[in-house]
């Protein structure tokens, strides 16, 4: 047994963010000292304070084992399940050794650590038609589908709807209407399910929505926040890849063209050619693209930013106009990556439920790294060195 689990109880200082909506007072900090073994959870600490000192502390909780999804909070500013965060780890990340527990972000607070999940999280879940629209005719017995496909959607099925990703979503902070990581991961659960009849309709809906799949800004916050390795951003990227590569959905938000422009420019120049990005995003890869009216308008609006960059020496005038030049050997190397990936008959996608090589799984830094690679639809075990999806 791991010795770390035999340590005696220690004192921990907790600083809880409290709010009593009936008092008329502003939120405040409430400190308690609890005594527990260091590997016990922040939830147990909060409950000890509640049981021993102040029964009015409000927190949703039930299972104590990271499966019911009730106790989403922020610990030292980071979203987490209280039951899934060890006290010693929380203390190590705390300012002045005091563990701060606050309600989640992006949702309004009802009382203390309890937020309004219905108004935000669940409303967004309902946005993605969150039920299977079964292919007809329904078979007498089970649908015959590949083992891999069911294991694949089980990763999103593993979402416990705790709201940690919603709490930390930067895009949602700027645009509260963004469908968001949890709901889009839920959408993948149907899009990736071979029994669902509406893959195209679902994807078209989410791609055309200005607050849909192309509203995500790839900040990785949801990936870090998720206590169940659902990898919401990864699921959003998969929705994009299926929408664009498989269904060739060209969305009104220009998301598809923008991605094509970005990857195309990196292939052509080895680095991003910023000045070309907007024209290509609107007009595609042609000389006339520069005269696309929407491109002109956006170029004009981004001119102040570009000028500032030039003035501060972040970009040279020449680079701004003609793009970056990298040595041809390096450019070739970049392009060979494209060739290699694009020459594959099928895409490879990450999935945590399909175990790969032992070496990968031994990395201690969490399962995101430990992800094994698998074939999206085939059955064979791929070479694990060829990790990653399409550019």
């Amino acid at each position, binding site marked *: 047994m791991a010795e770390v689990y035999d340590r005696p109880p220690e004192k921990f200082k907790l600083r809880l963010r409290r709010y009593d909506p*009936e008092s008329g007072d502003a939120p405040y900090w409430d400190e308690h000292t609890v005594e527990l073994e260091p590997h016990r959870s922040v939830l147990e600490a909060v409950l000890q304070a509640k049981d021993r000192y102040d*029964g009015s502390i409000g927190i949703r909780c039930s299972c104590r*084992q990271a499966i*019911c999804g*009730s106790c989403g909070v922020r610990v030292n500013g980071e979203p987490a399940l209280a039951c899934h965060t060890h006290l010693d780890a929380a203390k190590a990340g705390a300012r002045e050794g005091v563990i701060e527990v606050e309600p989640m972000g992006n949702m309004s607070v009802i009382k203390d650590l309890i937020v309004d999940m219905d108004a935000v999280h669940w409303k967004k879940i309902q946005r993605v038609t969150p*039920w299977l629209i079964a292919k007809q005719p329904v078979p007498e017995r089970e649908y*015959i589908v590949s*083992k891999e496909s069911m*294991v694949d959607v089980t990763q999103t099925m593993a979402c416990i709807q705790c709201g940690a990703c919603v709490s930390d979503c930067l895009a949602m902070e700027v645009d509260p209407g963004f469908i968001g990581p949890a709901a889009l991961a839920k959408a993948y659960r149907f899009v990736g399910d071979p*029994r669902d009849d509406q893959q195209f309709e679902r994807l078209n809906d989410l791609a055309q929505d200005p607050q849909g799949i192309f509203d995500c800004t790839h900040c990785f916050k949801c990936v870090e926040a998720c206590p169940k390795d659902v990898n919401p951003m990864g699921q959003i990227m998969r929705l994009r890849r299926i929408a664009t590569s498989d269904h060739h959905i060209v969305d009104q938000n220009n998301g598809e063209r923008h991605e094509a422009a970005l990857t195309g420019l990196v292939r052509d120049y080895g680095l991003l050619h910023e000045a070309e990005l907007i024209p290509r995003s609107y007009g595609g890869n042609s000389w006339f693209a520069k005269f696309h009216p929407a491109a002109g308008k956006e170029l004009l609006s981004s001119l102040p930013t570009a000028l500032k960059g030039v003035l501060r020496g972040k970009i040279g005038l020449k680079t701004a106009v003609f793009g970056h030049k990298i040595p041809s050997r390096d450019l070739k190397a970049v392009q060979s990556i494209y060739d290699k990936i694009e020459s594959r008959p099928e895409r490879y996608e990450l999935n945590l439920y399909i175990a790969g090589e032992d070496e990968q799984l031994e990395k201690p830094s969490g399962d995101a790294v430990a992800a094994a690679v698998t074939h999206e639809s085939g059955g064979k075990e791929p070479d694990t060195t060829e990790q990653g999806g399409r550019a």
Partner: protein
Amino acid sequence: MPEHDVLIIGAGLAGQRAALAAAQAGASVAIMSKVHPVRSHSVAAAGGINAAISVDDDWHSHAYDTVKGSDYLGDQDAIEIMCSEAPQEVMDLEHMGVTFHRNEEGEMDLRAFGGASMKRTAYVADITGQALLHVLYEQLMKHHETVARYEEWFATSLLLGEDGLCCGAIAREVRSGHMEAFTAKNVILACGGAGQAYKPTTNGLIVTGDGIAMAYRAGAPLMDMEMVQYHPTTLVETGILITEGARGEGAHLLNAAGERFMEKSAPNKMELASRDVVSRAEQIEIDEGRGVGPDGAGIFLDVSVVPRKRTLEALREIVNLGRDFAGVDITREPIMIRPGQHYIMGGVKTDVDGRTPIEGLYAAGEVACVSVHGGNRLGANSLLDTLIFGRRAGEHAAARAASMAMPGVDANAGLRRDAARIDAILARDRDGGGSASPRRVSEIKSELGETMNRHVAVFRNEQGLQSALETIGRLKEEAERAYVDDRGTVFNQDVLGAIELDFMIDCAETTVVAAIERKESRGAQYRTDFPERNDEQWLKHIDISLGGDGGAGRPHITYSPVTITQWQPEERKY
């Protein structure tokens, strides 16, 4: 005042399945839960769901295994219904979207489970309960026009008409503190077991016997309450469950000498004997000094004998649990476990359509006792129980609703009584107003749980049970004066905790009374003072209702026969 054909209290698997069935039968449905439905404790069921779906299997075999597992206390007519309807139910859930694990041919894969004579457990990794629960909730969202959801509403009591029929419930909206009376033609209780009456337990903090106690107070009899399942593999420190799926995949149980001790008590099935048998065998090892760990209070579960790739794919959740809650990589080293309270086979007595003896009141799932589990529930039969009898209760209640008018009932008296009860709790004096100083709700709850775990556990005897009963009597008095800190209305969990404590005490009391009454050893009830099964005298259910000859407010014992259709009691060997 909201009115519905069918009001369901509890939104775990049984409740949601009932809601869906009733809605599909055309009833207007309301489903109420004190937590958001996906927080319900069905979410924690890991291993899978039993159904004879394999072409080589036969539901009779499933039924026989269940009867044998129940130590012949299960009612065989109900078991036949459950097992024969299981394959279609599982297929229906698959069609709704449950992502059941497939084999190489793309058909549903099946894993081995305890007490089963062949592989018949369908599963979704080791998050089967979660997958089922979330898929059913998807269906509730789909049927939002016919199923009204009252999420985070706490039911405080059942509403009875003057004719004694059940016609609704009183509830408090947790968020606002608002009290409301719900009128309904039928009420289905689906609010789970009473695991929190034990400490430790695998059950979540919300599992406080609310439905059992509400039905008991309304006059419904409880059955098989003495049958409390201790799961063989729970983490020593926290009581967190390690799924039976681990042993289903081939994991071993080892004592301090490294011996697979199960060969002594179950030479054929070994680790996959039924849960009561395995838990007893473990407890014997621990009690006789062959346990592992600092106090010798544990047993080793060795999952490392399962191929690592398989463990990571099919037992991922417990790999995480081991890492996060015990600091053990279960794919490489054994983990320390012990028997821990997990499930109550008993509950509100119902027939095979979920009907209780109170007309208009139904129960399904762990809150109910049909009885399909008898003295001991087989692993992966609980999810099945919730779905089959949840659906049947929903269908029956919808049909009954179609044939009757909305009951006219004056709910105000009940509403005022429950509101006054809450006000009285809020007003309790912290210093006791002169008498002995009152205790916190949390302290009483803790003592209750420890008492139950000490005396009403794997092994029981008259002396221990009597002392537990005495303690419960004292705690009952203390609970009446227990004080709370929160005087507010918004999300006052403190005052609801006081009500839950009363519910748990009722459950604990009836459990102990039944355990004292049954003077034999059968299933989960093992009396060291009556170590043999005694079919002549005790092949019968113990029913407990409130009042009667026992005196007002006291449990009253009667018996009911066990239904035997085709399997006569035999000696039980694994």
